[in-house]
């Protein structure tokens, strides 16, 4: 399997103070990898480092064959969904999705509009295209954020807490969308989350972080980790899901 993302011996932190160290993993094309861990363990900091918004303290992040975040003059090679969706509040959903198309392609306006509408249709938001972000629900904002992240057909999607704060039905719909993108379009998805149902539903592999251990404590398929891991921290994390299902 060809890796499209290589993380090697990465140290991340704030203001020169390491938060996590020795992080290393590969992500293959079309794979869904969940970065998980408790609140405040450094998941979002790792994501910001992977997408180039934050400098690593040590180590490297490579995107073999597709360039990387440092290529500022070329179209971005990955799409990003931020935790808050980060849609531009005074623009409609359609305008939000059209923005990268107008910036990075030579498409005339009607063609860019058609492509943006197709992205919104893919995430089930065609009817809400002319609405402002403040006029739609949190789940719709997240889906619009995914449509915007998909605008340029990036080979990799980074999703920060896509289903956080959503009801189970909406969250399941988002999980289904992520699977559709990965299986149908061979998009590689790196998912930062601590939502266990989502992890079990979509992730091929998990990278589990722990603040106290200061790095990665588990790497593998979620169901394997849930049932066969020897690490009590990993078992505790997954057991919480089992407890919540019985209630």
């Amino acid at each position, binding site marked *: 399997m060809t890796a499209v993302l290589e993380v090697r011996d990465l140290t991340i932190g704030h203001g020169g103070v390491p938060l996590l160290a020795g992080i290393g993993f590969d992500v293959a094309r079309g794979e869904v990898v969940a970065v998980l861990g408790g609140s405040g363990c450094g998941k979002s900091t790792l994501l910001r480092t992977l997408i180039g918004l934050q400098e690593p303290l040590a180590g490297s992040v490579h995107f073999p064959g597709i360039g990387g975040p440092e290529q500022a003059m070329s179209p971005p090679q990955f799409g990003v969904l931020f935790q808050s969706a980060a849609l531009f509040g005074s623009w409609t959903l359609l305008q939000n999705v059209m923005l990268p198309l107008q910036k990075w392609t030579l498409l*005339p306006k009607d063609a860019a509009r*058609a*492509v943006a509408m197709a992205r919104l*249709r893919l995430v089930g938001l065609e009817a809400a295209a002319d609405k402002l*972000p403040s006029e739609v629900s949190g789940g719709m904002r997240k889906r619009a954020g995914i449509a915007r992240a998909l605008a340029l057909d990036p080979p990799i999607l980074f999703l920060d807490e896509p289903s956080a704060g959503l009801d189970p039905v909406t969250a399941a719909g988002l999980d289904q969308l992520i699977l559709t993108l990965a299986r149908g379009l061979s998009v590689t998805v790196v998912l930062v989350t601590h939502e266990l149902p989502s992890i079990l539903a979509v992730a091929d592999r998990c990278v589990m972080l722990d603040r106290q251990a200061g790095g990665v404590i588990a790497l593998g398929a979620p169901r394997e980790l849930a049932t066969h891991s020897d690490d009590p921290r990993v078992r505790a994390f997954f057991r919480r899901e089992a407890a919540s299902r019985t209630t």
Partner: protein
Amino acid sequence: MSSPGFRLTASGGAGDRVVELAGVVTLAGGAQLWRELRDAVAATDTARIDLAGVERLDGGGAALLYAVRDERVGRGRGCELAGATGDVARVLELYGSPPQPEPAPPPRPHALLADVGDVAHDLWRSWQAVFAFLGDLCWALARAVRQPRSVHLGEFGSLVERAGTDGLPIIMLINFLVGAILGLQGAIQLHRFGGDQFLASLVGLSVVRELGPLMTAILVTGRSGAAFAAELGTMKVNEEIDALRTLGQDPQRFLVLPRVLVLVLVLPVLTVVGDFLGTLGGMAIAVGYLQQPAVVYVQMFELWVDMLDFGTGLMKSVVFGAAIALVACQRGLAARGGAEGVGRSTTAAVVAVLFTLVALDAAFTWIFSLLDW
């Protein structure tokens, strides 16, 4: 420019045309695909776009193929996408859309009468909002008088610092310069008629009664009024105002009343400082340009400017302070629609406050002239 990656071959006549697409059909070559494909199928009754030779299709390419098809179908002409297999068919299926037989009707042109009606309606709604705001504030004031502790005074000190102390240097500088400019203009004219000694009364009365309060209020509008509107507008669009309500806090008492109180207290103090510096600016011209002893300027100032003149200026500044805070807070709390909405409400607040200040100043001047003050 890089190669688009696809090959397009058209065959057949105007009645029935087959367009064969081959190679890589992606968003990267989208602009060329859009142009060439639309040209190829433009003047035909029915068109078949054969995708058998397509090796790779991405979402953007699929979206463009469907857009070309839908455009033709919308015009009542036949078009089909055919021959896709494997991954290409799967992407096509993911992005699939039902053909759209009816093009969307063009938007109705605006009629002048309708536009006038819309503007009048918007004006009426905004006045309604202002009156509702004033009503709420009166109610909040009444409750605050009954329960003084219910007014949130936690940030009173920092508000006084931001609106007052921080603004002092610019207020001193501008008022000094205004006094000096007025003094210079007056000195040139008065000197022609040998009336140098009247410069103190000209500058003194103008500054103390009109320019001091007005200039200070305008500066406070630019600093504190805009800040209040932006601050409250941001809180509104971030749902912090709603959160306050759900916590049982009245935004009027929690946010608006402290700001009104601060400006009602701070603006007269700033005005006194402004008056002093404005008068000093005039004196600088009297001494420097007219070679008049400073003591003469001070004596003439004392002779012509009395406490009633100061009183009228301070009375104005109290009302100006309340007006700045009220209008700015009302506009801020009326913000809607994200960052742009906050920008709009801040601009609207500054414009509305400036208009209100000038209108109030004119009203005061008229009333004082009737009262012979």
